[in-house]
């Protein structure tokens, strides 16, 4: 016998846990950029290729989570935050994973190498960008607490502090990006021009990972503002 109660059917599936799971998956993908570039610096291209495959696989898994969440977010759902904001956060999170996949893909595809003089600074830059993604994950993980408190009180200021930290981390990555660019500029004539152009592009993309992470935080801030 079918039991269809109005009470049961009125509870839709919450998008919060899936959104958090998606971000966790995205971050696990971004994190791989550190061992990836370490392998590049160490010229262990076999390991780099392996890591690139892992990044690509994780991005794929994040994509699947994204699709299933979108499927479970019908217009008739009434949520404590606008549906559009949830979808925007999801899209931004997804772009972080895409960016990481592209970075690893181009670097392995073009068999790129990192010039010795900028290697250390570049690795620090990557690590800080990964930190931004980690901080975004922490912020997204507060969403269930926000719903529990009804988006009010101490929890809101706690999340705002977390978002503040995310902004600071992103700001640091901006500075590091400048330094890496300067360092590369100083030595760029010693390397084939096409390689250098692509190096600039990779620096740009790695910075984008932090930018997008910050945007996840900004979108969440919009949810708090209502």
């Amino acid at each position, binding site marked *: 016998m079918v039991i269809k109660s*109005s009470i*049961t059917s009125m*509870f839709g*599936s919450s998008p919060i846990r899936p959104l958090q799971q998606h971000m966790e998956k995205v971050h696990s993908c971004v994190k791989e950029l550190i061992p990836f570039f370490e392998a590049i610096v160490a010229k262990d291209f076999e390991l780099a290729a392996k890591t690139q495959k892992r990044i690509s696989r994780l991005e794929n898994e994040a994509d699947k989570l994204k699709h299933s969440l979108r499927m479970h977010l019908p217009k008739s*759902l*009434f949520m404590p935050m606008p549906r559009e904001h949830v979808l925007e956060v999801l899209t931004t999170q997804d772009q972080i994973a895409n960016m990481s996949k592209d970075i690893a893909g181009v670097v392995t595809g073009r068999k790129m190498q990192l010039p010795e003089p900028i290697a250390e600074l570049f690795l620090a830059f990557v690590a800080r960008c990964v930190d931004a993604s980690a901080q975004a994950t922490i912020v997204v993980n507060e969403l269930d607490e926000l719903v529990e408190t*009804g988006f009010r009180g101490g929890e809101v200021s706690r999340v705002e502090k977390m978002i503040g930290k995310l902004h600071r981390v992103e700001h640091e990555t901006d500075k590091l990006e400048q330094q890496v660019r300067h360092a590369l500029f100083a030595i760029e004539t010693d390397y084939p021009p096409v390689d250098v152009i692509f190096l600039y592009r990779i620096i740009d993309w790695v910075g984008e990972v932090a930018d997008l992470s910050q945007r996840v935080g900004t979108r969440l801030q919009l949810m708090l503002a209502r």
Partner: protein
Amino acid sequence: MEYATVYIGLAIVFGLFMAWGIGANDVANAMGTSVGSKALTFKQAVVIAAVFELAGAILAGGEVTKTIRKGIIDVSSLSGTPDFLIWGMLASLLAAGIWLLVASRMGWPVSTTHSIVGAIVGFGAAGIGMDAVHWDKVGTIAMSWVTSPILAGIIAFALFKSIQNLIINTDNPVASAKKYVPFYIFLVGFIVAMVTMVKGLKHVGVKLPFDQSLAIAALVGAVIMVIGALMIRRLKFDPEADRDFHYANMEKVFGVLMIFTAMAMAFAHGSNDVANAIGPVAAVVGIAQSAGEIVVKSATPVWILLLGGVGIVIGLTTYGYKVIATVGSGITQLTPSRGFAATLAAATTVVLASSTGLPISTTHTLVGAVLGVGLARGIAALNMQVIKTIFMSWVVTLPAGALLSILFYFTLKGMFS
């Protein structure tokens, strides 16, 4: 009266059937939020439902029973033809009971209240005459179907806002919960006891002055507050549980509160919905026993209230427990704090309606209460299509109950005259 014993026998059988249906299906909705929020185990829910449905039916079910029995149909115009009323009430019971069975089998949204009211209005208007129906009373009842979910929503919104301010959004939610939850427990006991004393108890022969009722209600509230406080003190908190979700321990305290709220809800449901089954029985028994005379002023015998309560418990234990399990496991995102706000709001609205004799839909009231918590940004995702099912229940159940009861009315009329 020629067929007095037959009539009473049929009324008891049909009434039990209807009460069984209510216990099998409807109780699950009332208990669903409690089981769903994990505040009660499934077994506890069944026991609480059985005890408090029965108590609600006997202690506070009188007013609604009176409405169903003689508020909808103008019985005074039927003094010459008492059999009409008996056939009509029997037909209404059968119609509502069968419709409930068919509709819940098909998975359609149904309200026991809507089916019985539709059925009684149906036989009254078509079988006796348009003038026989108290349209003003029917209008009031229909209005209460709109206002009860709204009122429950407002109360739930306010309750949730109050626990937000007093407990959830404080520096130490667990300590605040320990401090304030006993007062909410008091509130649960006080409201239910007060409403019952003022309006319900006179049907079991007790009538107390207002100040005495107030004192007893406060006493009842205080007693369960102490029990609740002791239960809270015995709780064991695990700081580890708060690492992942910072409010896990606070919710444990609300879990205690939810147990009492669930009792209030079962009581409220018993006080309002049991009348759907026994109101017509009381009407039939009243006429048949007084040898065809339609006694306008007569209280509902306690054994009939008991009959309804027992019917509900049988429905609950033979079938309803399965439905409670299903409904409970279907609601996963309701934490005890929200479950409490929604359930107490609904229970309060329902007991208020019971005391004024208005038959309302417990389920719809609960839906309104949950929406109220949702509007306070307290629930992650609510499916707004539920509003559609409520309208469906109006549009489908009222005419279905009416048509079936007209059919049975003329069948009975043909058989007995």
